[in-house]
């Protein structure tokens, strides 16, 4: 690895750590803005002043916010995310269970997304520009970009689950114990996420392919009499991949927010739904924990995407 590249990656890594720290401050600070304090939330509205004082002393709530932030962060770094105000049990097991379900959903969605969207973009580029196939694909992509994921999800449920009965309307993955059950549970959420993600990558791939196809070396390859399939896949595609990879990386980051919405649509027991539910219960430790883990995932995805781009950029690879 060349030195400037190592430095670049090092700087990027440092930035991610800084971001992670900033996120932890934001997550903690925003929760301080909630009306009432933890003692009030545990004991309820009609708690006596005396009970509140005792509880506050127990929880060390009289200490300044910055010290409590320090305690919380130290706990998190040691794997102690606090105790849920609703379940009265440690937060961490809830977060790990929900997080693994979210990872499963997002991982499968992404694994299918890459070949599917790049393939469709290629298909558009392989046919005549603005011809019937290309136009149809572009129009579908435009629609996919314009309809939010929860609308797509609701209509998929309405048609494929409620009306036709092919899939369960709720994705209760924790109750699916066989491979077919898991597949049919995940099918609709994965399809919904892919509908929402495909358009952007498809458009990037198609446009980059049309640009590359106009270049001299591709014309040269065509004039040498190489078969069209060979020209498309061997000569054009590798040079059109950079924008596609970029778009896929953006989508991977988008997935963190995308799963929040899709999990709510399908009642899928992931981390996003846990966050939304804990917010409505004002369950602060649970909110902080799930928001922190989701944000950390987002930061990690962006870091991985940037490093991958750096490694794949030939300009940076040479010494």
């Amino acid at each position, binding site marked *: 690895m060349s030195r400037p590249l190592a430095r670049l990656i090092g700087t990027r890594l440092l930035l991610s750590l800084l971001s992670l720290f900033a996120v932890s401050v*934001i997550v903690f600070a925003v929760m301080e803005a909630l009306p009432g304090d933890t003692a009030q939330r545990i004991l309820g509205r009609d708690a006596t002043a005396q009970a509140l004082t005792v509880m506050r002393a127990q929880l060390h709530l009289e200490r300044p916010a910055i010290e409590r932030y320090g305690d919380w962060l130290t706990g998190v770094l040691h794997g102690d995310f606090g105790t849920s105000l609703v379940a009265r049990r440690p937060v961490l097991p809830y977060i790990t269970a929900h997080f693994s379900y979210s990872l499963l959903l997002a991982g499968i969605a992404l694994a299918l997304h890459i070949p599917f969207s790049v393939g469709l973009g290629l298909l558009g580029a392989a046919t005549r520009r603005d011809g019937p196939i290309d136009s149809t694909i572009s129009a579908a992509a435009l629609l996919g*970009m*314009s309809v939010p994921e929860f*609308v797509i999800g*609701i209509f998929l449920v*309405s048609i494929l689950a409620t009306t036709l009965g092919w899939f369960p309307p709720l994705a209760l993955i924790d109750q699916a114990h066989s491979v077919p059950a898991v597949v049919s549970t995940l099918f609709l959420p994965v399809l919904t996420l892919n509908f929402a993600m495909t358009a952007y990558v498809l458009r990037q791939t198609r446009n980059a392919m049309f640009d590359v196809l106009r270049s001299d070396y591709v014309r040269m390859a065509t004039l040498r009499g190489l078969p069209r399939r060979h020209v498309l896949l061997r000569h054009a595609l590798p040079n059109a991949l950079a924008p596609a990879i970029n778009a896929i990386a953006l989508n991977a980051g988008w997935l*963190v927010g995308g799963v929040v919405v899709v999990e709510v649509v399908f009642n899928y027991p992931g981390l996003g739904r846990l966050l939304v539910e804990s917010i*409505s219960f004002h369950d602060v430790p649970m909110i902080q924990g799930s928001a922190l883990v989701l944000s950390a995932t987002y930061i990690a995805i962006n870091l991985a995407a940037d490093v991958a781009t750096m490694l794949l950029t030939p300009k940076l690879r040479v010494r």
Partner: protein
Amino acid sequence: MARRLSRTALFGAAVVVVYAALSIAAPWLAPHAPDEVFAGGAFEPPSGAFWFGTDSLGRDVLSRVLFGGRTVLLMAGSATAISVAIGGALGMLLGLRRGLADQVVMRLIDIVMSVPPIIFALLLIGALGPSALLIIVVVGLLFTPNVTRVMRAATLAVVGEDFVLAARARGESGAAIVLRELLPNVAGTLLIEFSIRTGFATIFISGLGFLGFGAPPPTPDWGVMINEGRSTMDASIWPVVAPAVCMALLVTSLNLFTDGVARVVDRAAR
């Protein structure tokens, strides 16, 4: 061929104008008040009296969609206006001045952008309680870093041109250069940012409404309507279909317009 907007872009612009007109005229056009309970029976199918049928509380879906469009356009438009105003001014100034301030602000933007926007919005709105104003401000601020980045890049492409150098040599102030020399040259990019972000904001704000973090009831909002109607879709799909189709048409039109403007700006730059 590319001096002018394509027909699809003009179509998109026309649809957005119609939406704006319908939103302004909603109080006169809507046959019922958006929160009038039992204007008809529950889940009535579309008819002459109720074009889009009624919802579970017998409210007129057409009236709710009209007023909901007003809410969405107002909220998404205001949020976008905030982000384009702040991000545009900041991006142009940073691009013009460069130096330490530029470095610091750009790194800060990198850090702010590392928080997933939907989570940031959910936390803030969850903690402070949903209100239309809060949603506008939060979404506006969330979109600002992106706009700043784009506008800074657009400025950097122009800032080395002779007319900017000449203005600098004449000793003109930063504000004068931004307004007279830079702004006319990045106006296309600014317009693209405005229309593309309005589409994003529409989807984002409806998503918040869907998750239960939208403008509080009884304000009609497309995302909230979709969320309310989805549990009773076996009784009537209209309370969901009507706002969903209206939203899809609006965002598609905005995207068509954006594509068209982007093409014109692209050609002009070449």
